[in-house]
């Protein structure tokens, strides 16, 4: 039986999945590091080993993510926009709006029956991405996930006015130094991200149900802040960080 492979080489993490008969055979995640072609090769090898198959058994490989052009052995490259849409349509076919928060970019995607109708991407600026969250968490000596958890304890929030990652970091350092409640600052950070993402979603026109994918969708603080900002519940698939790779593997299967 043929196996199909989806590789999502993101800016921070490389995700891979093998599908056999529509079911996952093996999946794994590597840090992308500084050498995307090498990471893609290692990721593929790890998938073959984990799935206990040879490369000949893989019929089609679809690469996506920013490192997609660094996968010379891919049968086809597809943008993460289309792959996330395809992946989310598999798990949450009812979704009409998809928010994909990745390591270094964020996207709002309008869907109709799993097809991309329109999309908006962040531009020029890293605010509203996983990297922004990482930088902010470092100031608290926490992981991004812990920062999200901390923000949920706040009853009020401290407003973060700067939207630039660098300026927001100095603002947060100042707020911590003034002794303001850490959980309220954390909530302010989550709201700052949510406001930027909500702006992109509204540009497309908010249509429910709203789903979220990408690594940042695992952060409870960001999801809560986005729900507050958009005034809707957000559907999160089981492994949101794998949605791009899932979509790529599904497209590989359809392409074959």
């Amino acid at each position, binding site marked *: 039986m043929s196996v199909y492979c989806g590789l999502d080489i993101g800016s921070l993490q490389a995700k891979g999945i093998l599908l056999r008969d529509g079911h996952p055979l093996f999946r794994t995640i590597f840090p992308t590091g500084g050498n995307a072609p090498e990471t893609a090769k290692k990721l593929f090898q790890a998938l073959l080993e984990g799935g206990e198959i040879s490369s000949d058994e893989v019929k089609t490989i679809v690469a996506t993510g*920013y490192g997609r052009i660094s996968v010379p052995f891919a049968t086809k490259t*597809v*943008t*993460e*926009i*289309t792959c996330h849409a395809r992946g989310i349509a598999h798990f949450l076919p009812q979704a009409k709006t998809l928010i994909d928060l990745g390591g270094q*970019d964020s996207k709002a995607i309008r869907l109709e029956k799993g097809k*991309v*109708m*329109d*999309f908006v*991407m962040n*531009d*020029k600026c890293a605010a509203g991405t996983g990297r922004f969250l990482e930088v902010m968490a470092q100031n608290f000596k926490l992981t991004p996930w812990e920062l999200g958890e901390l923000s949920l304890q706040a009853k009020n929030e401290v407003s973060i006015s700067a939207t630039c990652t660098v300026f927001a970091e100095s603002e947060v350092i100042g707020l911590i130094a003034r002794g303001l409640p850490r959980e309220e600052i954390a909530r302010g950070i989550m709201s700052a991200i949510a406001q930027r993402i909500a702006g992109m979603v509204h*540009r497309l026109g908010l249509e429910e149900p709203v789903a979220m994918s990408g690594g940042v969708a695992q952060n409870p603080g960001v999801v809560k802040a986005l729900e507050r900002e958009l005034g809707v519940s957000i559907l999160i698939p089981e492994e949101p960080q794998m949605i791009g790779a899932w979509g790529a593997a599904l497209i590989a299967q359809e392409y074959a």
Partner: protein
Amino acid sequence: MNLGNFVQAKLQDGSAIRLLRSPWIYRFLSLFLRSQSPSVRFSFHLARDAYLKRKPVAFTSLFFPTELVYALGMVPFPLEVIAALISSMGMAVPFLKKAEEEWYSQDLCSFHRLGMGLALQDYLPQPDVVLSLTSLCDGSHRFFYNVSRLFKVPHFLIEVPGNGGKKDQEYVVRQLKRTRMELEALLERKIKKSDWEDSLGYSNSLREELLKIYELQAHVPCPVSGEAALGNVGLIFTCAGSRWGPELISAWRKSIRENASSENYRLFWLHLRPYYPAPIFAFLKERGVSIVGDELSNYIWPRLDPKNPELSLSSKIYANFGLGPIKNRIDNIVRLVRERKAQGVVNFSHRGCRQSTGGAFLLKEALKEKGIPCLILDGDCVDPRELNWEQMRTRIEGFLEIL
């Protein structure tokens, strides 16, 4: 010998300032001129006439009707076009930096920032006058006013109100007449009937040649390079009214091979393109994308009548469908998209260009209603530091996947 490479090398080693003003360099370069393309020959004549002051020099804004300049025996020196040219040579950054050091904000249009950098570094010829319109660009006439102060020469500004109704046209005609009379007094040269006949006649011939190009753009597959069309925008506006106009566009048309290779996508382009070396057009070509037209090289005006020169030029100014309510622009874009059988629209949203970016959302919404997908591509036409190619590539690929 490639004349373009020679000029670029001299610009890069800093000796160009002296060379641009040396009669010997033009004599030397003229030896190689015959084998060059009409656009290189036109640029050579324009530079020679301006830097050696063979003719009075007018700094002009992009949409200023150069027919008036040629009729007066002047040479137009279009600063925004020169900025694009410098950028295309990969030489933009030092001039942009110079302007920024002198407090010209990075939020301003980079065409004007670069133009100011050239002026501050003494790379421009000494003008006799500065001529600009308020047409479309709000920053333009302030930039040109500033340039006129720097060079201590008069600035003639034509205000272009409304969307070309009778009173608007009369107002523009009055200003054009007054400007013409003041320029005649300043230059001590009256425009004769034959000057208008030549200038407007050349412009009409240029117009006819452009219409032939538009016909070719509608062919499936499209034989006209969208990159070349966008690259020719500056030339079209600069040579209108000169004998070079029809020759340049005719040479462009003859260079088009009608048997185009197959195409996967047909897109219509709005606003301008990045002029600095960027992989965008090679990438589009690789994906089988034809740019079947663009907003500015499709600026077409009614035939000009030498018996009513100012009224004709006013009509030409108002033929710009970016003027007036955005509905004008939308209606014309929809018409062109349909005529050219385009599947979608790319709106290159040039940073610092308020008139273009300001209407982007309305435009996208209106096109969506008509079922025409639109990609808003944020970027900069002149400043290569603003290019984030990975992001831009993902946007373009994502858009093509939608199509």
